[in-house]
């Protein structure tokens, strides 16, 4: 739908971004945080979260919506980290080990997820969401019962006192911020985790390159119209599975990067909100279920996290309770997702109506219908 960009239309299409900017700006003053602190916090969070959000892009290109199934990749990444800590592999090597060890698992998970989603065409998002819940159960079983029992664990510090199962909180000190501090650039009061940024830039370049490949083109074709793609000989199901595998593997790497920055890991909970925050970020950045760009990712991460940084303090100052800010976080995150999905459905219905009107072609009735 190209046409004139009226102020009204601009407001409608960017409603989410505008609401975010207003709330954040309004909350900066009462939060009492210095601008330097906020900017530094955003720079850190860009390095921490962008990779995970980027993992969502390829399934969107392939028309599979927001990949809530990325949680599966995050679980794989956590298992990798558990083993890195277990074998006491420190620093960046530990991260590399975690990524390599979890990669086969991530690929397998992606494959399973892809096959399941192929059987639920048109309902990928809700299916991925529920699949993540289901896999959470398997993950818990694996980590809570088999690790230390079926799989021997060398490091008693991470095992529960009963002798098997991993402790609730995993201390990641030996790999903590190893990527971030590998090459830390100091500019004025700010420190930039250049190595993390570099990894993200490499991923961005990969995505740009990937879109130019035959595979990328096939994914776009499948994303636009599966039936047409199929009738021209593109292996639709296979292409969709590959899209999900790539996304799952990226989510796995992204979760490792995320956790090394955090420095500790809630063994049974770290992954549960991975997809939720990534999806909220990309939607805040202006993406929709069908359309997303690299810019959406970074704008989204900055906006969502700016809000997350200032609201707890603002809540503390204004209402005397930091929990209000925490509440806002959840409320706004889910609110954004719901709003974006509703807006998307509304827009596609409008578009379908407009196309049907086009069918009537040139009659008085069409003019009348168009004027409505």
């Amino acid at each position, binding site marked *: 739908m190209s046409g004139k960009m009226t102020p009204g239309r601009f407001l409608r299409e960017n409603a989410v971004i505008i609401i975010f900017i207003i709330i954040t700006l309004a909350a900066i003053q009462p939060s009492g945080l210095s601008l330097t602190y906020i900017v530094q916090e955003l720079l850190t969070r860009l390095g921490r979260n962008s990779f995970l959000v980027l993992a969502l892009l390829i399934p969107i290109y392939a028309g599979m919506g927001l990949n809530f199934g990325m949680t599966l990749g995050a679980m794989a990444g956590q298992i990798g980290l558990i083993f890195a800590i277990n074998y006491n592999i420190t620093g960046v090597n530990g991260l590399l080990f975690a990524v390599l060890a979890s990669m086969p698992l991530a690929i397998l998970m992606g494959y399973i997820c892809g096959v399941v989603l192929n059987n639920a065409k048109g309902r990928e998002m809700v299916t991925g969401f529920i699949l993540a819940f289901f896999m959470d159960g398997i993950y818990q079983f694996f980590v809570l019962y088999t690790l230390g029992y079926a799989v021997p664990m060398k490091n008693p510090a991470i095992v529960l006192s009963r002798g098997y199962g991993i402790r609730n909180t995993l201390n990641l000190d030996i790999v903590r911020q190893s990527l971030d501090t590998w090459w830390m650039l100091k500019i004025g009061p700010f420190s930039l985790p250049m190595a993390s940024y570099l990894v993200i830039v490499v991923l961005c370049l990969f995505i740009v390159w990937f879109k130019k490949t035959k595979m990328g083109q096939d994914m776009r074709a499948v994303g636009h119209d599966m039936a*047409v793609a199929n009738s021209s000989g593109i292996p639709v199901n296979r292409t969709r599975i590959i899209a999900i595998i790539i996304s799952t593997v990226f989510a796995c790497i992204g979760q490792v990067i995320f956790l090394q920055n955090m420095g500790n890991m809630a063994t049974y909970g770290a992954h549960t909100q991975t997809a939720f925050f990534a999806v909220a970020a990309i939607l805040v950045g202006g993406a929709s279920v069908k359309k997303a760009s690299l810019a959406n990712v970074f704008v989204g991460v900055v906006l969502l996290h700016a809000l997350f940084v200032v609201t707890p303090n603002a809540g503390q100052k204004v209402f005397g309770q930091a929990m209000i800010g925490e509440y806002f976080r959840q409320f706004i995150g889910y609110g954004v997702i719901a709003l974006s999905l509703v807006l998307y459905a509304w827009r596609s219905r409008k578009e379908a109506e407009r196309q049907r009107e086009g069918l009537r072609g040139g009659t008085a009735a069409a003019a009348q219908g168009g004027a409505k």
Partner: protein
Amino acid sequence: MGQETPLLSLQNISKDFYGTVVLQDVSFDVKPGEIIGLVGENGAGKTTLMRILFGMPVIRETGGFKGKICIDGQEVSFTSPFDALDAGIGMSHQEFSLIPGFTTTENIVLNRESMKNSPLNDVFGDRMSILDRMDMRKRAEGSIVKLGVKLDPDMLVSEMPVGHKQFTEIAREINREKTRLLVLDEPTAVLTETEAEVLIRALRQLAAQGISIIFISHRLHEIIEVADRVVVLRDGVIVKDTPTEGVTVRDIASWMVGRHVATERVDEAHRYFEEIILSVKHLWVDQPGETVRDVSFQVHKGEIFGIGGLAGQGKLGIPNGIMGLFPGGGEVLLHGKPAPLNDPRTALQMGMAFVSEDRRGVGLLLDETLEWNIAFTAMQIQNKYLKNFGIFKIRDESAMKKLTEEYMDILHIKCTGPKQQAKELSGGNQQKICLAKAFAIRPDVLFVSEPTRGIDIGAKKLVLDALHKYNRDFGMTIVMVSSELEELRAICDRIAIVDEGRIAGTLPPTAELAEFGLLMAGERSAKSEEALSA
């Protein structure tokens, strides 16, 4: 002449679906660079013939076909449409098979993109190659030039006028180096006249380059304009295969609709009607695949008004729009009072009823008993067959049973009893249940859509008799929409033919068959409404 090996030769093709013969001994040849015009009514077998030619899986799944297909004199057997493509047969469908978000170029070379190697090829295979967009564009432009039309290679399909989409689709087919035979299924159906002319010129140009074309169209004057030879299918048999020279539109129209056995009209007496009960003005309906663009007509009280036309032209959209099942606009007056559109409940309350062509989807509650099915609408709309207990109502089971038994008797419904489930009945009996359901609310105007589709001949007659009986005995006004001209001619008082979402003309049932054929083909006839008043 005769020495030339035909490019494609169909020999004695026969096909039946579970005993129903749809093609019988169909044979014709296509020479290189020849344009064949293939015409026939709905159900004449055009689609099935093309499916056989393309090796569609549905043909094998239903027991294959008899006869031979030869290309360059060699017998071929395609197991999938891709085999047909490899053999050089391309097809452009009536519904566009294009990706709206892609440019002309991307669509033309879809899945045949030019590629450059990339370092990841060795690990992940060809699909990791980089697209060579320059070359893709060059190839697309080549096809566009070959077709001889103006197309912007970088325009998104979603922003194109319809005509350009059609050209893009044909350009894609001829972009395959091997394509030597093009099958075009109603390529001009969505085009304006100027666009259609450009297309016809383009097809002539392609034929001059040696590409053969099978051109399927219901616009007969286009067939005459573009085709070298016209092949007419009727009821699965080729009734005519002749060079187009000297053939008129009228000839083709009469070959197309001619029947060996004409159904006898029950009463020949011409009936006269005074009062207008239903008046429709400038109706448009957005029913996918059956778009109604601008339809106006009037129905007299007590008459049976027929609406015919080819599939996809919008005849089904008319009752669906008036009854509010698909979004529409315009003006509908019942007894002179405006009937709101897009509101099925009010339409029913005002005294209109509808027997849908979608019997199993809209017409019946498949998992419920016959009683329920027959009484359902009356119960919902008119509060019949309910016992009122003030704050709540319960079903009046005995009244429902009585009603059902009554209709089982009148319509000769074959079933085990009123408690049988609707899904267990045969198609014909299900249709009678649908009729009974509509009769039960005693409508002033009854719309029936494709009442005999998918039911056997004996049941057809019973359904038509039932409509006739209710019309004569109870004076029920009936608007009957049907693809079968013969059944319209058998019971209707007037027949309107819909073409491209508009009424092409209204004829008395006694009019010549060729007249109907001309209207269906979009050739406006001089005789129309006036013929009736005469």
